[in-house]
């Protein structure tokens, strides 16, 4: 066991907590210190709540002590996340806490209630360290659309961590926490996981309750875990998944305990691959894809084949229409979901003297929303307008059905999972895609069809390209998360000896510099060039 508690996996921390060699407070303190020390350089946290985290840690230590007195059965009954630090994307409601969704318009708003997953994590005994930075209302692929400044990627502080869950990905990569939660509407978990070199999963739509999560696009949004390894991510999914009566779209599908039983041994994990069938969707090797990223993906395929699985090329013919359809459906839903931010009941509000309420709305929303959010509200409003609805929204929904059918057809042939790139490129530099929104949207070309089809997808690290992480995406049929995690764990097994596995994010040392530039300063310097 390493002496630095922040270098452990969550499942190692869980063992140490149980044998009494470490306390939840020790874990919280070690991670809080790292977070506080490096947040100037990374800006990945919007809040670090030391007092609340320590109080929660002490409470879990007390329960642990009581369980230890009660005997092994009581200890075994504790959830694997008991006492483990977790970071929450700042669109997850925590009673009494801020919930900005990365937006100016929610500055000062404090949620009066816990999201469903927060209740679940409290029950499991997880310790919340704070809330993480994100693109405003989860709209973005670089975290540059946060109203609270950009986030640096721990691998290269001049690059973005991806988005929209950039903060949640960066804090796990930087070892500020072993676990975090994000949301994924078109790739917002998987893409930053890929760019930060960690594991990130978007579960099947309906697997996790959205109650208490600030909505971007209701039919696409799904919560999911970030971790540095498959076992930890699976355990976190296990803690938050399951039917919630308050979310009518959450499915009454049992949560498989298999998520807690991924093999510890690399060899055992790798052996699972024997005889499995994978599909490699031809259309996911898109134009504009970084050739070196493609090389890493092809090498990964070779690893999988070497372990006894077959990988066959498959076709998902409607993939090319995914982006266009997504940018109708998601903004359409967003245009309605964001209508509630009117300054009447909460958050930022502008009151104009002697003006009617429409003028107040215009001022509140005009000042409270950033440019990208406004762009999407306008896109969505336009797409839903009389005379355009059939041509845009209805047609996009039809395309969505075709995309879903593509996946159904491939999985019907007995394919266990698809292997694909997560992102066409590695982490890009600040400002690189700000001038051209479509270039930013293309970051999610390989991930958003999965949201359109409501399927689970996981991004796992599969090597480095010029020193920056590359993500491999595994996509499965609905409710196949246990299979995807088994495959992810197997991939960890077959690549256990790879040198990139042990490599820490390159710029983590730099992030310790308390006088170095902030991400905003780095971004500004880049823009000035």
């Amino acid at each position, binding site marked *: 066991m390493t002496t630095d508690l922040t270098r452990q996996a969550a499942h190692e921390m869980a063992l140490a907590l149980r044998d009494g060699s470490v306390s939840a407070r020790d874990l919280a303190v070690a991670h809080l210190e790292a977070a506080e020390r490096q947040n100037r350089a990374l800006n990945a946290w919007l809040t670090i709540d030391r007092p609340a985290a320590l109080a929660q840690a002490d409470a879990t230590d007390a329960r642990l002590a009581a369980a230890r007195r009660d005997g092994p059965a009581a200890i075994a009954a504790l959830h694997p996340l008991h006492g483990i630090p977790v970071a929450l994307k700042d669109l997850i409601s925590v009673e009494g806490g801020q919930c900005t969704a990365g937006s100016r318009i929610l500055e000062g708003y404090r*949620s009066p209630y816990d999201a469903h997953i927060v209740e679940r994590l409290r029950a499991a005994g997880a310790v919340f360290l704070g809330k993480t930075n994100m693109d405003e209302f989860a709209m973005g692929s670089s975290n540059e659309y946060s109203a609270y400044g950009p986030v640096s990627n721990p691998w290269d502080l001049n690059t973005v961590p991806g988005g929209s869950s950039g903060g949640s990905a960066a804090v796990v990569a930087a070892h500020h926490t072993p676990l975090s939660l994000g949301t994924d509407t078109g790739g917002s978990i998987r893409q930053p996981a890929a760019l930060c070199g960690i594991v990130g999963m978007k579960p099947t739509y309906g697997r996790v309750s959205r109650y208490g999560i600030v909505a971007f696009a*209701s039919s696409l949004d799904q919560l999911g875990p970030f971790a540095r390894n498959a076992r930890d991510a699976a355990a976190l999914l296990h803690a938050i998944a399951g039917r919630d009566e308050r979310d009518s779209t959450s499915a009454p599908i049992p949560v498989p305990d298999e998520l807690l039983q991924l093999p510890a041994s690399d060899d055992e994990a790798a052996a699972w691959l024997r005889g499995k069938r994978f599909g490699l969707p031809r259309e996911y090797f898109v134009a504009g894809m970084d050739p070196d990223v493609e090389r890493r993906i092809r090498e990964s395929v070779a690893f999988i084949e070497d372990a006894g699985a077959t990988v066959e090329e498959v076709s998902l013919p409607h993939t090319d229409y995914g982006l266009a359809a997504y940018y109708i459906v998601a903004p359409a*839903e967003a245009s*309605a979901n964001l*209508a509630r931010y009117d300054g009447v009941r909460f958050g930022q509000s502008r009151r104009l003297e002697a003006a009617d309420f429409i003028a107040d709305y215009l001022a509140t929303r005009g000042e409270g929303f950033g440019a990208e959010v406004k762009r999407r509200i306008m896109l969505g409003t336009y797409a839903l307008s009389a005379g355009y609805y059939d041509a845009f929204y209805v047609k996009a929904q039809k395309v969505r059905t075709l995309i879903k059918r593509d996946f159904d057809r491939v999985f019907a042939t007995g394919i266990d999972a698809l292997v694909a790139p997560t992102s066409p490129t590695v982490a890009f530099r600040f400002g690189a895609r700000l001038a051209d929104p479509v270039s930013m949207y293309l970051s999610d070309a390989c991930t958003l069809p999965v949201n359109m089809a409501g399927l689970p997808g996981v991004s796992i690290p599969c090597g480095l390209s010029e020193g920056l992480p590359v993500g491999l995406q595994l996509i499965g049929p609905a409710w196949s998360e246990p299979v995807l995690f088994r495959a992810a764990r197997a991939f960890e097994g077959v690549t256990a000896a790879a040198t990139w596995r042990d490599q820490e994010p390159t710029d983590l040392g730099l992030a310790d510099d308390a006088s170095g530039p902030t991400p905003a300063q780095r971004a500004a310097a880049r823009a000035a060039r």
Partner: protein
Amino acid sequence: MNPNSTSSSASTALDRYEAVIGIEVHCQLKTASKMFCGCSTAYDGAEPNTHTCPVCLGLPGALPTINRRAVELVLATGAAINARTPAATRWDRKNYFYPDLPKGYQISQYDLPLAAGGSLNLDTSEGPFTVGITRAHLEEDTAKLVHAPGSNGERLSLVDFNRSGAPLMEIVTEPDIRTAEQARRYAEELQLLLRAIGASDADMERGQMRVEANVSLRRGGTEPFGTRVEVKNMNSFRSVERAITFEIERQATLIDAGDELVMETRGWSDDRGETYRMRAKETSDDYRYFPEPDLPPLRVDPAWLQEIRAALPELPALRRARYRDELGLSPYDAAVLVADPDASRLFEATLAAGAGLDPKSVANWVTGDYLRIRNAAPSEAAPHADPLQVGTLVRLVVDGAISRVNAKEVLEAHVVSGQAVASIVAERGFRQISDVDALGAIVDAVIAANPSAAADIRGGKGQAIGFLVGQVMKETRGQANAVVVQAAIRARLGDGGAA
């Protein structure tokens, strides 16, 4: 029912034009909790913003869940008006900004309502009439805006979210209605129906039933519809009739003068007796409806629909027909009884409790004296009649054991105090003396004590009989059977010019 005819000027207008009227009714459904959250709907009289939660306040992250009972009530309404229910229906978002709409959209139903294509039959002063009903759908109510001056005299608009998210059913008719009376009768009949199936209390004064009318005129029955005006703020059945009558006249006058009508929304002022412009409708509003992604499509199980249909009570129109055709009541009595569920219940229960009672006698007592007494009694007295007691009373009257006048007093005492009829009759000595021998003795004594009156009668002055009957009544403290007494006097003094 009250055949309150339309005013003469509108009748004149209707000689020249045909009015085309469609009615939209919003009614609050009678559920314990709100449409999409668990908040109680018992917020009448509560402090503002005490019946709220993240869902009905539209807080970030809150999600709706469907109130099954509300769906059931709309399905029941649909069944009662013979509407179709699609196998799969869904929710849609209706988008617009207003401070009383916390989410910036209302969850409603757009192209797949829970009920479509029904009808309602009514009786009017001009005969029976059928109104086609386009649709009935479910949606959520808005919050309430209260405009009040602030502490510094500034204009303030306050929002009370207690009503926000309460279940609302919207019922839209075809443009079938041609007169103001038909419109009022439609609203009245709909209220009866909603109350009968327990869907809504549908009290117009309390905003539980809000009626809006679309009114236009055209010259002939085959011409295209004229410019449509929407009339709101009609808070009683009477104002529905008055407002539409006024609007028909107003539009006719404008058309006569060659003026152009504008599409607009007009409010009804009960005090001024006129409609006034609220806002012009130059373009139709674009609500950007789209399917609500937070709620799955709603599939109505045919077995459930069957259960709902089977559980429907007897509907007002059928009940009226039964009262008339099977029980022999007059159309008026049938209508009065059916219009008043309490009276109708009492009527039925009295018939059920007292075998062999004549329905018409019971109906007379219920629609006449009972309703008069109940309506006059203070509501805190909780006026109430026991069917068994009413049956007893009717029988006493029919048997001649108690006079009609005394019977009214007994009924009043029973309704107010709940005391049993027999004990009131005994206590007040109301039991009628019809025994010829017993009364004969008293009559003899009265004749002896009043010789001049007796002489008058013998002399043919019949009106003096009344005086002698009164004396007998006095002697018997009103218990004498007047018919028997009269007969006895005549037997003794001659017919005396009886009329």
